[in-house]
């Protein structure tokens, strides 16, 4: 009878200890999950920052790419003819460029012919979509660039430039 009592008390204490250990374990596990959650949100934030930085840096390098550059007389200009041509190669270049979407539209002189209900008709002569994003949620970044064309009349070479806006989009993860 005495033995049974003692053994029951021991059992109870062991159970108490086991519950305590489980409680401590759960406490530390929750604390670890909390810390991980904070560091992961930090990581997502810095990943988005790096992506944004990359998109902005990339937009600034586009005028130096032969696929879109004008000529040596204007190193920061885009070639309008190449913009038109590149829109036919959009699917291939979407895999190559670190952007989700890329388009360009005329800003100056104001493209009055292609404005419908106060908005620029796109795609049109004044708005060239090189490739579009498949994802609906993406953030867009823009830069203004001179867009030029060359023509030759009566043996004289003419270069004409307009101001366009180059807009690149990057995917947003929700």
């Amino acid at each position, binding site marked *: 009878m005495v033995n049974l009592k003692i053994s029951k008390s021991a059992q109870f204490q062991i159970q108490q200890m086991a519950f305590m250990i489980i409680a401590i374990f759960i406490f530390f596990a929750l604390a670890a999950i909390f810390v991980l959650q904070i560091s992961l949100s930090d990581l997502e934030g810095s990943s988005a920052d790096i992506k944004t930085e990359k998109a902005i840096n990339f937009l*600034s390098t586009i005028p130096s790419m032969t696929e879109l550059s004008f000529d040596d007389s204007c190193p920061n200009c885009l070639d309008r*003819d190449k913009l038109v041509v590149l829109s036919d190669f959009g699917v291939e270049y979407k895999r190559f460029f670190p952007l989700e979407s890329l388009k360009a539209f005329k800003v100056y002189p104001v493209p009055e012919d292609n404005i419908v209900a106060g908005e620029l008709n796109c795609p049109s002569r004044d708005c060239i979509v090189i490739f579009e994003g498949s994802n609906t949620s993406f953030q867009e970044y823009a830069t203004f660039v001179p867009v030029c064309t060359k*023509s030759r009349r009566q043996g004289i070479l003419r270069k004409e430039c307009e101001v366009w806006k180059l807009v690149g989009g990057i995917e947003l993860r929700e």
Partner: protein
Amino acid sequence: MENKKAEFGFIWIFAILAGVAILLFMIYGATKIIDTSQVIEDTKLAAILSSNLDLLEAGSAQSIQATIRLNKPTNLSIGCFEVGYGDNRIQVSSGKSGSNEWSTGEEIVVSDKYIFSDRTEASKVLEINSRPFSYPYKIADLIFITSTSYCFVNTPSEIMSLYSSLKGISFDNCTRDQTSVCFGAYGCNISVEGLCTGLACNSEYDYGTVRKDGRSIPYADSLLLAAIISDSQTYECNVKRLMFRGGKIAEILLAKSQITRARGCNTALDSYLELLALSFPNYDSSDFLSNTESILEIDRLNNQEVCGLW
């Protein structure tokens, strides 16, 4: 009394065992978290580097250079995938503090860059140079990452004017820790032989071969520096990627020539561009030896045109 003793002893043994198990588990968890955070840091460094390489591209400049100082010895490994446009993969490994082990970050894939480097560069200081590669039009900016110091010997003036401003390269008076590069001579770690002799050549070294580690590596234009610093595997892979892009640019220029013709800007380069669009995707570095003089001639023809396609 004896039973109570046994009970007391058992509880203590159980508590000690459980405590040790929890402690070991926590130490293991903490080590894993530290390891993971180091992998994250290495991955972040590779991602930041890949993002900032855009700023280090030569663009319209003849060359751009930068020095990266890291706070601990870091291995930078550049992988290369050559199918189609292909890509370069940047992977950073850094030493774990207090041990000889290294942690390695995830690979960061960059498809719009052409990075040449020794496969693994362990250093606290990295020199980054960028120069455009034209063949016959500009195909891309090449990025050279190295921690090795090079000494150019018997350097022709045209090469000296191109490379004298680059960090990590000195001329003559070589020291023991430098890798020597001889132009038109032997007896150095690396030797360069220029083969351009035609009328369209600007210099004997417009194309040629770089001999190192018992291998002869053909180069053209600014790929000279790439052949000197890069391992042959990365070099060949990036050459294939560059030439694939070169072929696409030929297609774009060909389509552009159709548009500009309507505005009086005729060109006689269509047939050449068709040829380049077809042949470039199958190029490897050995084709530089047989074709570079024709390519230089195409560039000369473009410069003579009123409108010019590039």
